[in-house]
């Protein structure tokens, strides 16, 4: 499996002239106090691809996702071991600043969580604190392009001063995506981004994910296997804190190699 992936990565690298593997994670363990939540996960995350993490509740997929931008740091009892390399640099190295890291690795959460401020403020917040724009005009431009990329500009361009929380659920989630891409990250992590949305809003977000793939590496945790099948190129199946199987989405969903994977995706778990 690994050799296959690295050779794929090399193929990409030759094609575009830049390294295509964004994250290399090897032997990642996460402990919450005494409890081992992740037991040695190794996975590569490639640029311009959507990697879906699936698995039953409590399998560690969200925990793994949160390792990638060190969101686990906010949990006092969490301890992470193993190596997580972003473009070859270990993100758990002492020299890596977590604030900078989170600007490079953006995150979209399960429940749409816009700040209770105006739409404009929501998108402009990240660039402001990172000092990406000093002039108002620059900030305006960032807000506009981010909202356009998130496919929300046409719907909100005439009411940027209204509260972000006044939007519909689907719009809120796209606003959160716009907020994440406003700081021009390289990787976007999505933790069940559609679980609170209706099917139409879900379809919009999925369409957006597919468009964003052109410029970012995307990792998405989802409970909907159909969604994983629809949006991702690679799928990794987590179970009991371990990756049971990972590979091309097509293969995972038509011909999984592991029985546990098959049982899970066909609805036979028990």
């Amino acid at each position, binding site marked *: 499996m690994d050799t296959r992936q690295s050779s794929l990565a090399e193929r990409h690298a030759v094609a575009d002239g830049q390294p295509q593997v964004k994250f290399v994670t090897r032997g990642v363990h996460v402990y919450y106090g005494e409890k081992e939540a992740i037991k040695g996960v190794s996975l590569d995350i490639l640029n311009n691809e959507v990697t879906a993490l699936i698995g039953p509740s409590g399998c560690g997929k969200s925990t793994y996702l949160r390792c990638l*931008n060190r*969101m686990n740091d*906010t949990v*006092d009892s969490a301890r992470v071991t193993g190596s997580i390399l972003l473009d070859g640099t270990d993100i758990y190295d002492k020299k890596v600043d977590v*604030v*900078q*890291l*989170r*600007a490079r690795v*953006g*995150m*979209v*959460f399960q*429940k749409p*969580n*816009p*700040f*209770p*401020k105006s739409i404009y403020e929501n998108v402009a*917040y*990240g660039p402001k*604190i*990172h000092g990406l724009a000093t002039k108002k005009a620059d900030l305006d431009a960032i807000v506009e392009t981010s909202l356009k990329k998130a496919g929300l500009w046409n719907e909100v361009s005439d009411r940027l001063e209204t509260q972000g929380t006044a939007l519909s659920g689907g719009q809120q989630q796209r606003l*959160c995506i716009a*907020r*994440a891409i*406003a*700081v021009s990250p390289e990787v976007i992590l999505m933790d069940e981004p559609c679980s609170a949305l209706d099917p139409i809003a879900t379809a919009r977000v999925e369409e957006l994910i597919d468009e964003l793939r052109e410029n970012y590496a995307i990792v998405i945790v989802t409970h909907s296997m159909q969604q994983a099948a629809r949006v991702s190129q690679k799928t990794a199946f987590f179970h009991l804190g371990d990756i049971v199987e990972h590979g091309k989405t097509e293969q995972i969903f038509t011909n999984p190699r592991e029985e546990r994977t098959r049982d899970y995706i066909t609805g036979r778990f028990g």
Partner: protein
Amino acid sequence: MTDTSRTTSYLQSEEAARRVKKRYAAEKRFRFYGLAMISIGLIFLAILFYTIISAGLLGFQSSQIKVQVPLTAENLGIEPGASREDIEAISGFKLTKLARASLHTYLGLADGDRDARARSDGLLSNGVDTQLRDLILDDPAIIGSTVDVWLMAHGNVDPFLKRQISRDLPEERRLLNDQQLGWLDRLAADDRAALKFNTNLFKMGASADPELAGVAVGLIGSFFMMVLVVVIALPIGVGAAIYLEEFAPKNKLTDLVEVNINNLAAVPSIVFGILGLAIFINLLEMPRSAPVVGGLVLSLMTLPTVIIATRSALRAVPPSIKQAALGVGASKMQAIFHHVLPLAMPGILTGLIIGLAHALGETAPLIMIGMVAAVFDIPGGPLDPATALPVQIYMWAGLPERGFVALTSAAIMILLAFLLTMNATAVILRKRFERRW
């Protein structure tokens, strides 16, 4: 299948119907109890308000007697066109005598009738000299003319004009004898004795005469202390709460601090008074009876409340907001100060209101630090001696004169008004915060 049908038939049976009826009856009963409890509460509240307001309204009125006073330069013993200092230097004795003489003239009492004169003097307040002096100071041009002026009546006159004391009492047990009452009736018939609005209540400090006593000193003292509490307890309390909630490492020491804060909120307030006495007055040698010490003591007392309220307000902010901020790369402090704190502000303000209301009504610790002294002069700053509204009420409640009964209730009404104003301000502030965010 059989199970379902059995259940169905049971649900349609009479016994089931009875059970349902019983359940509804229980609910109805509970609603009735609730309503009854609320009614009882409202009735008690109404009784409380009725007692305070009915007694207090009289406190807002004072008996006054209109007298024609010839304010000639000769009578006042000054040159025409005298300076302010000269006017201020007029002896109170002279002014009192002038006012009393004017009343003698009105009542037609002969020079030699010393007894009658003394009795007539008993109708006027001991504070008429100040009243007259203020009148002249306000408008020195009136020197030389005879003014028809309302002067404070003596505290003994007040209950009769307010009809608090029956005239049927035997003369020896009455504060005024038959002659004095006759004069009073004559004055009243002549529209020269009446109840007027009691401006002294808001202008004056402590006094042994009810007609000259006021809450001004207490009001100002309380105001200074509340300002101090807001300035000291709010930033310290909020800061401590943020640190404990968001930054403090979770260990035994933090737990200990937490337990102590929770316990401090339950410590009797008098303990804070003893603490204030020991530290601020004995150790730091701060002035006694000063609002600054009172404010510090009340701040200490309010701190735990503010800390606890702030912590629960911070905890009530959905963690998703903080995560969102961290997710776009905000530092922990930025996430808290930009997003969490503003959302917690309404809750913090609510806690502050509760703390302030508590502090405003506090008496015991203030007594400990000497704010129970009778202060006559309006304090100019927080370092001047003052008293507090609740202490003033406490002191008046212990005085025997009839007039102080009404004054006590009136002061309670003022205290309530103070409290309502303070709460309204906080509610408006909170509303503004909610709208901004």
